[in-house]
């Protein structure tokens, strides 16, 4: 369970996040949606400690993350997995070494157990046998899946995904969404997905938070999102012709 309270973040004069509070439950994928510049990624970065909020706090299962020092945060960080928009794989390392990296750094498992863990997570993301490939040899979708494999290698309690579908074709996007959803339920992970992809919203949006101009504008589920009258939300949801056409039908 992650709780954020009254998060505010400024970059100079520009107030990017304005007093955002929310709760994220385990076993549920929460989608943070909103237009470009609405503060989605900044909110996620404040939650994981890549940005320091100017006000407010983030608590992981009751442990206040924002008040901790770098050293004190390490224990919580070991419980966090993150999939980056660009996948952020270490390009000088093979797929296997990318996944082994956090295991080598923080676990005292024997080598054979680590290798088994790598093979297990690669199989879980349908990339069995791709151990020796380098990031440059992978497609966009494969990179995202390796990113997920690396994120879940340490059995995280919290999974953050920053635009997991960006740059992917619709079919691969659905596969990535399904994978995130399956992993969330299977391991009872608290998952937070930042996206502006309406396919993801309709597919896995059990819990959705809509940000607009740095504020939490709306909160609900994909079942409620098309039935809600909210000017800004409706403008975002029905921005694509496809959604409009489908809804008319």
């Amino acid at each position, binding site marked *: 369970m992650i709780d954020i309270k009254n998060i505010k973040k400024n970059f100079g004069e520009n107030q990017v996040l304005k007093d955002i509070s929310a709760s994220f439950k385990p076993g549920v994928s929460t989608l943070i949606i909103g237009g470009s510049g609405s503060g989605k990624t900044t909110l996620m970065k404040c939650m994981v400690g890549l940005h320091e909020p100017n006000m407010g706090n983030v608590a992981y299962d009751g442990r206040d993350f924002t008040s901790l020092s770098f050293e004190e945060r390490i224990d919580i960080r070991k419980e966090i997995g993150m999939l*980056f928009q660009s996948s952020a794989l270490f390009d000088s390392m093979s797929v296997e070494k990318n996944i082994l990296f956090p295991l080598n750094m923080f676990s005292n498992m024997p080598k054979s157990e680590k290798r088994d863990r790598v093979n297990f997570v690669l199989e879980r993301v349908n990339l069995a046998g791709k151990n020796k490939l380098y990031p440059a040899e992978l497609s966009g979708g494969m990179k995202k899946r390796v990113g997920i494999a690396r994120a879940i290698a340490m059995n995280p309690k919290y999974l953050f995904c920053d635009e997991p579908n960006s740059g992917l074709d619709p079919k691969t996007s659905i596969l990535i969404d399904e994978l995130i959803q399956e992993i969330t339920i299977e391991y009872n992970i608290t998952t937070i997905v930042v996206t502006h992809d309406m396919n993801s919203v309709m597919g896995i949006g059990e819990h959705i938070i809509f940000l607009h101009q740095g504020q939490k504008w709306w909160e609900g589920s994909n079942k409620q999102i098309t039935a809600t009258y909210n000017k800004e939300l409706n403008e975002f949801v029905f921005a694509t012709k496809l959604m409009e056409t489908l809804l008319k039908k």
Partner: protein
Amino acid sequence: MVFHHFGKYILLLKSVFRKPEKLSIYKDEIFREMVEIGLGSLGIISIISVFIGAVTTVQTAFQLVSDLIPKSVIGGITRDSTILELSPTICSLVLAGKIGSSIASQIGTMRVTEQIDALEIMGINAPGYLILPKVAAGVMMIPMLVIISIFLSITGGYLAGTASGAVTSVEFIQGLTTNFNPFTVTIAMVKAVVFAIIITTVSAYQGFYTNGGALEVGQASTKAVVISCIAILAADYIIAQLLL
């Protein structure tokens, strides 16, 4: 502005020297960097060192027009200027271009492709993991390169001097072995260590705080070389003033 950057640089250094998460991983990284910095730069350092020595000998001979000064002085001047100034400083300026730009672009690319964020999310001290092995490898390998450079430079001077007839073999060796002050080697080593720290940390700082994309990585790389070169020359003057 300068103080702001200096403060950030000091804070970065503080993070660099935090206790490593796992020593064995850092050790592997240090060895890898030692190969890259040391062996990777041996070729260019060898070539420039031979020419530095050769030019120093030929130009010193050209300037010694008086018959009252023995030709053996050429050997002594080549030795002292090589040990005290030319080998440590010119090698470090060249290494600032070669290693410094590589460090800045490598770390800068990792920053703009979110690889550094990924390290931080994993709970790894990114400055320590990325910069400490480079600093340690630089501090160990650059003094070794300077020692090799001193030998090659003096050899280059000997070859150029004897081949051009500016000085005989006996005169050059006599000059080389007369009035040798071993403290000059200590000064060369102090310079090499200080310059190694400047090259690795200044370049790493420029790379670590890169914002943007490919253009900014290129700019960080250029800045790293320019600032390292200026800092090396300033430090060169300070060390000379303090130790001589």
